[in-house]
């Protein structure tokens, strides 16, 4: 093993505060992260040129596939959705609301978010699969104290067969602000017409940030 001093210095140069303790056994790598890695890593590209067009210059500090600036991409899982079933007076009718929590404490203050995509996978009730007219998703802040939480955004959802994605940047926090340490959201999915409620299987956040300290401007083309 490398001398601790040398390894610690290299870790610090890579912008990592401490050595991660290792892969959690139960967590597979999401396909989106594999795809981004294979597109991004030039040595991968060299070994499988099919993935990037020959001679394509990848802009530094830019995530081509998502079309945003950034040099750090994180896939953050929800810390466990707590479901609350509300009475008929609830604005969402009989359906459930979920509180999801994302721990963003690993994001450094110097990192500027450029993309925050919330992805949710729902399952419809077996008996009456499919609500005529689709669903309406609302994403809100968790209520503090007695007051009701504020709704950050609403989105029509045609089908629950594919993951539902919403962009939170600009809605959950301001575009040019650093990420909060923790993000607590209340999700509600209401069938537009009468239909069965759905259940939330998984919620995750794909967060892209730009740490400009690790960026170098594109070198000027040779005169």
């Amino acid at each position: 093993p490398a001398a601790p001093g040398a390894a610690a210095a290299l870790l610090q140069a890579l912008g990592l505060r401490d050595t991660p303790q290792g892969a959690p056994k139960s967590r597979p790598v999401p396909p989106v992260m594999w795809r981004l890695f294979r597109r991004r890593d030039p040595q991968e590209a060299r070994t499988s040129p099919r993935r990037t067009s020959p001679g394509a210059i990848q802009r530094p500090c830019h995530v081509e596939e998502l079309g945003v600036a950034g040099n750090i991409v994180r896939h953050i899982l929800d810390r466990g959705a707590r479901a609350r079933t509300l009475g008929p007076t609830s604005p969402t009718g009989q359906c459930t609301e979920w509180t999801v929590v994302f721990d963003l404490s690993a994001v450094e203050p110097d990192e500027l978010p450029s993309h925050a995509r919330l992805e949710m996978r729902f399952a419809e009730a077996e008996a009456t699969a499919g609500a005529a007219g689709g669903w309406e998703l609302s994403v809100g802040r968790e209520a503090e104290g007695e007051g009701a939480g504020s709704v950050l955004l609403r989105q029509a959802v045609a089908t629950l067969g594919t993951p539902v994605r919403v962009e939170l940047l600009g809605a959950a926090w301001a575009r040019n602000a650093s990420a909060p340490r923790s993000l607590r959201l209340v999700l509600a999915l209401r069938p537009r017409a009468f239909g069965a409620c759905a259940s939330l299987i998984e919620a995750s956040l794909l967060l892209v940030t730009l740490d400009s300290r690790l960026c170098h401007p594109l070198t000027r083309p040779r005169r």
Partner: protein
Amino acid sequence: DAEPAVGRGLGGACRARRLYVSFREVGWHRWVIAPRGFLANYCQGQCSLPATLPGPGGPPALNHAVLRALMHSAVPSATGLPCCVPARLSPISVLFFDNSDNVVLRHYEDMVVDECGCR
């Protein structure tokens, strides 16, 4: 895993030498998902004439490194030779788990030596 360095500054003209950094050897293979390592390479070799003269597509024909090599060949004790350093670098990406069980993809510029030059 490196091409053996031959003495200080000896071993032919300035060029990139092979250096493979294995994350297993650094002890990071448990938390780095991919890659397993990468070719970082390093620069070594003589920067005397004619090695200092730029190849096609290189820097202008007469830059400071050439001037210094000329001075050295004329009065060796006056100045040392130019240095053999990275002239073109490329980035790598690392996919890993952090301590909050997030899957993280980080991109690092200037991690691989593609070309060396005398400066």
